[in-house]
Structure formats: structure tokens, C-alpha cells
């Protein structure tokens, strides 16, 4: 039974990370209708920036996390201004390929600056603690708490503040939002900043129990795409629930089934679900 709860916790922590990444992806999709393939590279960039801030400048973990969130938010806004905005009227294919261009650039950039090696990020929360008779790594609890806190914060921001309401309005109807005086450029930039910051924080939370390397974003972003397809593209609760489902499926599948094929579970789940319901699990209709 203890093993079961261990896996439950593992699933929830990985699911939390996936949810954060998927939330950023789904926010951008909701506003721009662009599947941002570069999002995984932002995630990777977040981990590297924090790694640099901690390693070379000697900042502590939390400051490094904040610094990396700001840096990636700026990077994300730059991507919007320099790449996605000029392609506003291009066919959707071009947006996707441009995002791939950003991805290639950031990955090669990270590799040129820090090499292709795997790096270990230290965390001040490496110790094990005992909760309800379970021995767990403190970092995992931190991930879980961080993810829950961020999701609640984002939810409150989107539903309780006027600025948040402008984002929701833009996602619902771009032209309508512009008609009532919402500044589309400002909202788009804000969404990109939030999305980048979420990816960075997720990466910094997860990196200490994983590793830092140029291709670290690949699997996470692909799984985040699986999550937002399952949850409905642009859906906020869909991203959270989808993230937890995939996280739990991986933890339990990896434990009871096979660790080797753990990463396949998300994709097989996607194929199975979409062959029965091509429109996704939670989406109500066409989009």
C-alpha cells in the first residue's frame, strides 16, 4: 500500500509539472491559435538560466527561479514580437514552422553556451521527509505545492482581475475584445510572458530531480501537446486535469507495467482516446 501511495505522489508531482507547461501552451493557443512548438525550448531555457544563475552567480534557488521566470518571459515576448506577430496573416503552417525555427535556435544556443552534457541542478530541498508514514523527497512536495499554488493564483488572476478578464475576452473573441477597447497587442504579450514564466518555473521545480540538457524539453512539450489535445485546445481546466491524468498514468504504468515504455504511455493513450473520440475528451465541439 505504501508503494501505491509513493506512485500516487510521483504521479501527482510529474502531473503538476505537465499541467504547468500545458497551461502555458493552452493559454497561447487560446489567444493566437498557434501551437507553439517552441514552448519546450522555453522550458529548457528556463532550466539553463536558473542553472547559470545558481552556478555562476551563486544566487539561491528561489532567486534563480524568479530570475529565470523573468528572463524566459522576456524571451517569450521577444518571440511574439519578432516572429509570431509578423506572421499574423500567414497560413497556419508557417506559424508552426516558425516555432520550429525558434526551437532550433534556442536548443543550438543552449548547446553552444553550455555544451551538450547533462548537468545536475542542486536544490536546497534534497532531503527526505516523513509525511503520514511515507518517506518522500522534499523536492517532490515542493513541486506539488508550487504547481497547486500557481494554478490557483492564475485562476484567481484570470477570473477576479480586470487584466485577467481581458485575456479571457481575447480568447473568446478577438474582434469582439478589440471592439470593446482591449489592446490586443498588450494582451498577447502578457499571455506570452505568463506562458514563458510558467514554463521556466516548471522547469526549475522539476530540474533538481531530473537533469538539465539541451533536449530536456522534447518529451515534456510533446506530452503537453497530448494533454491539451485531450483536454481540448485552449481549455484551462482541461490542461490541469489532462496533466494529472498523464502524470498518474505514467507513474502507475511505469511501476506496474514497464519502466522502459513509460514515456510511450501518454502517446498510446492519445491514440486510443482519439480513435474513439476524435474531438478530444473534454472539448464540446469543433474549434
Amino acid at each position, binding site marked *: 500500500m505504501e508503494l501505491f501511495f509513493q506512485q500516487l505522489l510521483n504521479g501527482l508531482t510529474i502531473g503538476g509539472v505537465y499541467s504547468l507547461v500545458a497551461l502555458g501552451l493552452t493559454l497561447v*493557443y487560446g489567444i493566437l*491559435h498557434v*501551437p507553439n512548438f517552441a514552448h519546450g525550448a522555453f522550458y529548457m531555457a528556463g532550466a539553463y538560466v536558473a542553472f547559470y544563475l545558481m552556478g555562476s552567480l551563486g544566487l539561491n534557488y528561489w532567486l534563480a527561479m524568479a530570475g529565470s521566470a523573468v528572463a524566459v518571459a522576456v524571451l517569450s515576448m521577444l518571440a511574439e514580437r*519578432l*516572429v509570431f506577430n*509578423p*506572421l499574423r496573416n*500567414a*497560413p*497556419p*503552417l*508557417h506559424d*508552426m*514552422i*516558425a516555432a*520550429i*525555427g*525558434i*526551437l*532550433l*535556435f*534556442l*536548443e*543550438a*544556443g543552449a*548547446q*553552444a553556451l553550455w555544451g551538450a552534457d547533462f548537468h545536475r541542478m542542486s536544490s536546497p530541498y534534497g532531503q527526505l521527509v516523513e509525511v503520514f508514514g511515507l518517506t518522500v523527497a522534499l523536492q517532490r512536495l515542493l513541486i506539488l505545492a508550487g504547481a497547486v499554488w500557481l494554478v490557483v493564483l492564475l485562476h484567481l488572476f484570470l477570473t477576479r482581475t480586470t487584466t485577467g478578464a481581458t485575456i479571457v475576452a481575447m480568447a473568446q473573441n478577438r474582434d469582439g475584445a478589440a471592439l470593446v477597447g482591449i489592446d490586443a497587442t498588450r494582451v498577447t504579450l502578457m499571455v506570452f510572458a505568463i506562458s514563458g514564466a510558467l514554463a521556466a518555473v516548471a522547469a526549475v521545480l522539476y530540474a533538481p530531480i531530473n537533469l538539465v540538457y539541451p533536449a530536456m524539453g*522534447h*518529451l515534456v512539450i*510533446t506530452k503537453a*501537446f*497530448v494533454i491539451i*489535445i485531450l483536454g481540448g*485546445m485552449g481549455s484551462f481546466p482541461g490542461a490541469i486535469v489532462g496533466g494529472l491524468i498523464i502524470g498518474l498514468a505514467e507513474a502507475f504504468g511505469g511501476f506496474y507495467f514497464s519502466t*522502459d*515504455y513509460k*514515456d*510511450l504511455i501518454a*502517446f*498510446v493513450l*492519445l*491514440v486510443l482516446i*482519439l*480513435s474513439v473520440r*476524435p474531438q*478530444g475528451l473534454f472539448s464540446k465541439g469543433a474549434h
Partner: protein
Amino acid sequence: MTLLQGKAGWSLLIALALVFPYVVPNNYFLSVMTLSYIFAIAALGLNLITGYTGQFNLAHGGFMAIGAYAVGLLTTDYQWGFWWAFAAAGAVCGVLGWLTGMLSLRMTGHVFSIFTLCVGYIIYLLIEKWEAVTHGAVGVMGIPAPAHPFGGEVDTPIGQYYLMLGFLVLGAVVMQRIVRSILGRSFMAVRNGEALAEALGIPLMRTKRLAFVLSVIYAGLAGGLYAGHVRFLGPELAATHHTFELVMFMLVGGIGTLFGPILGSVLVPWLTQSLQFLQDYRMVVFGPLLIVLLIFLPHGIVGTWLHRKARREAAKRAQAAPSIPTVSAPHTGARHA
């Protein structure tokens, strides 16, 4: 300028390709070119589903890997002859493509792309983890070179070069036949408007599935040739960045044109080879270059040229006979904006 068009242009290109081995100083250039031809065949296939039919398939590199592994495993573990294995590679990709197409083509637009990206990942992970069949991370070694019809193997650099060139010409001719036929027109009709195409009586799913199967057969055969040329395979071949490279080739040359993917597949590797001094920084230059190209030259090199030609001709016609309404651009350039 007329020299560069139609039959004359193609003959000139083939002539250039034929004398190429005799003007380059060493085998290194020959090998870069041979590899370019192999990727050009795969890019031709990707262009059929993405450029002509409008479905952005991100599993294309995965299918190329399946073709390569089919040849690699059948020739080494099961001692098949190269060409039997090569035919099997096409068949395997065709069958798997039919199954994948049946599932994935029910989705449209972004969802289709993301779904196929995931299919590509499944292929990669299966090749890497299914050690009993694929040898996992160790890879497949000792793949024989393509058998020569009069005995022996085609294993000299120059023999390989002409073999791949032959296949590329064949691939391009077949592709031209496809896109100029009524079938090709129905692919383009689907690209330009699925609802409209269906209203015209084109069976939507069947047409898209056929385009998908044909395109992955190209990928599979290109993969088979790759196995016969490089003669070593690792799971890395199925990694997504190979798909991205094919997309780049197609886009740089000109998406939805016959010559575009071939031009891109030859041009881009030469560019990256000449950027060799940048080593790891290559993609740092190439990523932004790709974006600049997308913003300022969205139709690629061939596409832009065809557009300009069509516009010039339309202007000339309008001048000569103002009463006759101008005919639309030639179909190769008529990609919807």
C-alpha cells in the same frame, strides 16, 4: 530564362547532375550530394501530403526511419536480398501509413500535426526501446550495399551517386505524373478547401488517405536507400529533428511545387556544409534564417519565382488584350496564400 523552364530546364539539371562526379575534387562532395538526393526523395513525399494536400505531417521522418529499419533488419537478421528488402520497406510504410492515416486524418489542422508529431515519437521510442527486434540503442550494423543487377554490390561512391540520382529522377517523374493527373488535382482541391472539395464530389477521407500513403511510401523507400548508403542505423534517425529538416528543405525550395523540395534538399545541406566552421552554432544561424525566410519569402525560392513569372505574364496578357480576363497562375504556383 526560357532555358530554365519545362523540359529544357529539367534536361539541363539532369545533365549537370550526370557530370557532377567528374568536376568535383573528391568523394566527400559526392557523398554529400548522394545523401541530398536521398533526402530529396523523402522531401518529395512530404511535399505531396503537406504542399499539395495541405496536411502538415510531422511523422514523416519516422516513416523514413521505418523504411530504413525494414531494409536494415531484413538484410542483416533475416538475410533477405537488398532489393526484396527495399520493396518490403515501401510495402511496410504503405500499410502502416494507411493505418496511421485512417486514425490521424480524421483530425484537421493543428490537431493533425500534433497527432502526427506524437506518432513520430511513438516510432522513435519503439525503435529505441524494442531491443529484441530493433537492437535498441546499439543500432543495426553491417547492412549490405544495394545489389548490382549483374552481380556484386553498388558500393563505390560513384555507383551509389548514380543509383540515388536514378531513383530521384524516377521519383520526380512519378510525382509529376501524380500531381498533373486528376488525382493530383483532387489533392490540391482538398488543400484549397476541404468543404468545397467534398461538395465537388471528391471523397475527402479516401483522397487524403491516398495522398498520405503515397507520401509515406516515398519516405519509406528513401529510408531504404539511406540504409543502403550509410549502412549503419541508430534510433536517432527517427528523431523529430529529421522531420523538421525535411520540412525545412521543402520550405526553402518552395512548398507545393515539384522542383522546390529537390532544390531545398540540395541547397540546404550545401549551405550547412559551408557553415561547417560554425560547428555547434550552425542552428543558431539557421533557426533565425528559417524565420526570416518565412516572413519575407513565404513561398520559398521556386514558389516566389513562379509567382513573379505568373504575375509578369498576366500583366503582359492584360496589356496585349485588355478585354480577355486573365487566366489564373499556373497550377504549380497557385498555392493559396
